[in-house]
């Protein structure tokens, strides 16, 4: 694992459990019908219910329940036939009612797990529970001296809290778990997992103990770490800090800490003594949540192919390496684009070598060109002018020999850049691959005529000069010559 000196780490085992809060992709909030949307001007998506006005009552959003059930099924959880909402009390200006409606003693989902794969191998991280709760608003301090403002647009947005068992043993494992969890939530359309917008947030519970020990060390909670990189950094720092403390005879105190990205350190927020007493009790305004088995069956039947299965299928069906398959599957939209492309090729050339060749070309094109543009510009590049039909048609020209692969790459990136149809660009630029025997023959003869010394040397046994001739022909054709054809003709003419 990374972080800390390896020798020291061998003396210690790191024990980590993660709590993830993910915002659900519902149209409206969990207990009122205000829109659930990020980025609106402050306090424009609010009503008396989510502002905690007197006389208001929560009305549960069934869509949030459905999404919760779906996430649970995807992670192999048990759906509780009856679960209970409770009130969690604390005072803070962004918490309008003075309590958060959450689930406590009886969560919606229990059990389940997620397969992770790191350099240390493949393991299952068990999931302890998942439950529904409402998000709080946001306090705004920036740019307003001596004052704080409160934005309640986020107050009441549905969250699924996903609590792992303390099965994670390293920062790498934590990050892999989080990535796979996020992937699962995105693939099932439970959440957009957008970390910049706070729809996927993480608390880390971390302790250390001697390897082989069966009791847990004193646990420290690191709150609200909001990127994979920060999770890694916070854990590396916290592991070092705890080992150092214990080895110098100090006791770890149970506390909540905050990660400061600028210093890369964690610092104390509140101790156990200062821990809040949340005074949970069942929410009297909401009846127990009874889950209809029909809903569970509907969700089970309509679950999409899950990322783990899809990776396996991509490997088996398309001969992809595991690493390549994981890259594609990590992004739902990208893997869909990839598969749609393949099926277009399949309908064009139903079988045999041609299909195999098309698949290879397409895979490499998607994993290099499309992936690069996707990472740079997002999902938009998979639609519009560079939608899959156009890109496949572009590659089709390569396969038909009328366009070189490098030309195709160039055209594609230009098409993305200018939001133009790549096929129109090909025409406009007059890009045609030279494949005709006569035309190429003339080019080759020209090159041979211009380089008599090299021709003589080649014929005298200097085989390595072959590449020189190919390059010269390609140059003369301004990259338009079909390299395979050039090879063929050169070999023929050089024989003499």
């Amino acid at each position, binding site marked *: 694992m990374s972080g800390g000196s390896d020798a020291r780490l061998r003396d210690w085992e790191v024990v980590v459990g993660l709590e993830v809060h993910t915002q659900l992709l519902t149209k409206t909030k969990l207990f009122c019908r205000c829109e659930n949307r990020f980025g609106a001007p402050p306090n424009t998506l609010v009503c*008396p219910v989510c*502002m*905690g*006005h*007197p*006389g*208001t*009552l*929560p*009305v*549960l959003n069934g869509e949030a329940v459905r999404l919760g059930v779906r996430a649970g099924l995807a992670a192999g959880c048990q759906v509780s036939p009856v679960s209970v909402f409770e*009130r969690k*009390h604390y*005072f803070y*200006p962004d918490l*309008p*009612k*003075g*309590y958060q409606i959450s689930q406590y003693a009886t969560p919606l989902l229990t059990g389940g797990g997620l397969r992770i794969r790191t350099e240390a191998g493949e393991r299952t991280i068990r999931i302890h529970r998942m439950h529904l709760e409402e998000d709080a608003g946001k306090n705004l301090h920036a740019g307003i001296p001596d004052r704080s403002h*409160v934005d309640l647009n986020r107050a009441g947005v549905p969250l699924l809290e996903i609590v792992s068992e303390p099965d994670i043993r390293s920062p790498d494992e934590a990050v892999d778990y989080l990535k796979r969890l996020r992937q699962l939530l995105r693939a099932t359309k439970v959440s957009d997992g957008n970390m910049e917008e706070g729809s996927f947030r993480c608390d880390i519970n971390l302790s250390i103990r001697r390897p082989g020990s069966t009791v847990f060390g004193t646990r420290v909670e690191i709150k609200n770490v909001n990127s994979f990189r920060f999770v890694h950094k916070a854990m590396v720092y916290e592991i070092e800090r705890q080992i150092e403390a214990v080895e110098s005879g100090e006791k770890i105190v149970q506390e909540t800490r905050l990660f400061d990205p600028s210093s890369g350190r964690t610092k104390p927020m509140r101790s156990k003594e200062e821990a809040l*007493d949340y*005074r949970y*009790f069942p929410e*009297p*305004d*909401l*009846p127990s949540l009874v889950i209809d088995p029909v809903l569970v069956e509907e969700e089970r039947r309509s679950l999409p192919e899950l990322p783990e299965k899809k990776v396996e299928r991509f490997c088996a069906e398309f001969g992809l390496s595991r690493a390549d398959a994981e890259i594609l599957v990590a992004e739902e939209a990208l893997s869909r684009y990839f598969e749609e492309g393949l099926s277009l090729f399949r309908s064009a050339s139903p079988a045999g070598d041609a299909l195999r060749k098309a698949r290879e070309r397409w895979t490499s094109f998607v994993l290099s060109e499309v992936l690069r543009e996707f990472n740079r510009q997002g999902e938009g590049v998979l639609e519009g002018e560079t939608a899959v039909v156009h890109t496949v048609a572009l590659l089709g020209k390569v396969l038909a020999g009328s366009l070189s692969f490098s030309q195709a790459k160039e055209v594609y990136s230009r098409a993305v850049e200018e939001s133009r149809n790549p096929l129109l660009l090909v025409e406009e630029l007059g890009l045609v691959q030279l494949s005709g025997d006569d035309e190429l023959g003339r080019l080759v003869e020209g090159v041979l005529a211009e380089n008599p010394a090299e021709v003589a040397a080649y014929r005298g046994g200097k085989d390595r000069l072959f590449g020189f001739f190919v390059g010269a022909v390609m140059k003369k054709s301004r990259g338009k010559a079909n390299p395979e054809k050039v090879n063929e003709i050169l070999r023929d003419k050089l024989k003499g």
Partner: protein
Amino acid sequence: MKNPFFSSLAEFARGRDERRFSIEEVTRYFLSRTEALNPSLNVCLSINQNAVNRARQIDARLVRNKADSPFTGYPVMIKDNLEMEGYPTTCASRILSGYVSRRTATAVARLLSHGVVVLGKTNLDEFAMGSSTENSAFGPTRNPWNPSRVPGGSSGGSAAAVAAGLAPLSLGSDTGGSIRQPAAFCGVLGVKPTYGRISRSGLVAFSSSLDQIGPFAGSGADALEALVAMAGKDPLDMTTVDRDPAEMRSEYQSTEIGGVRIGIPEALFGEGLDDSIRERLRNLRDSLSGEGAREVSVTLPHSRYGINVYYLVATSEASSNLSRFDGVRYGFRVKNPADLRSMYEETRDQGFGDEVKRRILLGTFALSAGYQDAFYRKARKVQALIRRDFLEAFRQCDMILTPTSPTPPFAFGEKTGDPLSMYLSDVYTITANLAGLPALSVPVGVDSHGLPVGAHLIGPPWSEGRLLRMADRIAGLYPMPLPEVHAGHVDGLSEGGRR
């Protein structure tokens, strides 16, 4: 109670339809009576300045179209913990000063859609916490029967409004007896429906699992119509139950005294009950037997824990419900607090009255880590036993009869120094809330001091119709004299009764 136009809802509707009076005329009558009596009785915290306008609009509509509800144009007052869009809701608390509601309570909205005219909002114990209306931040309401006595509480204003003839119908809320005890003290009928019968949306919550809205009225028939108009599933309140409100009307019509089995929990007629009340109840029991009702002895073994359970469950929920009054978004906030913590502390310290603070402290304690099992959770378990006792008893009887209050209306200040004795005012009424059952208080005459006495009927879930029919039969046996209230009479009062 009496007015020159009508003595019942049905008579009002007839008079209106026969054009014997206009809605404006009726509205102006009640408003001017309120204006005259309110300075001394302190029934209303606010008077609806728009009432006459609304009355005129209704009159204008009635020129063209026949009224589609008996309530069209009917004057109503509502307790000031019920919301009406565009109007202040104070809950008789300083902490809500300046607060204007953005929505209308479902119960009120349903009555409004039947065409009622809301005349004003009535006084209460702060956040409905109390049994005398002495805990109002705006001064106590006086009992129209005797202005040196409390009207009961927490819906003292709404009970006094009907008793003093300021409105023929009013709404209250009942968490542990807050409709029934003031109904008894003011000599009117007051009903707490089955939990889930009427939406709580727009009722400022005290104890969410116990609160219900209900009417004060001159008769069971009038209260019945109000209940039917307000009841039924509400998409804004998930604790409402989908039952046809009209079932109450058919049960009302089919109930007869002859053969009714009346459960008598003898233990509740013993120690602690005022003698003159016991005597009135004795008289009632004899009369009912004379009419053919049959007494059945029932036991409610866990009811003796009612007060204890109530003051754990209700305060726990209250401590939670009142967390939202923090000075951040609306209502009262201290000026220039030093920091966030002092803003919370000082706002709540200055905004809430003593009884509210006492209950927040009790409830916070009952829910605290380390104490919750012994207090809140245990109370919930006993609550379940109390309900089971009742359901068991209702296998042998159709309704249970008890006194409404152990004492007649007491004097101002008599119990304010001793919260426990104040809490005992609700000893008979509290268990109906804990068990979620419908119950009502109906007047059965006056005691030796001329103060009203109420009989308390508790029924099985959804039996409001049956209870109301019985209330009307009882009212027929005990025609109530009317309190002598007029402005001059009350003006002569000394202020001695006030705290």
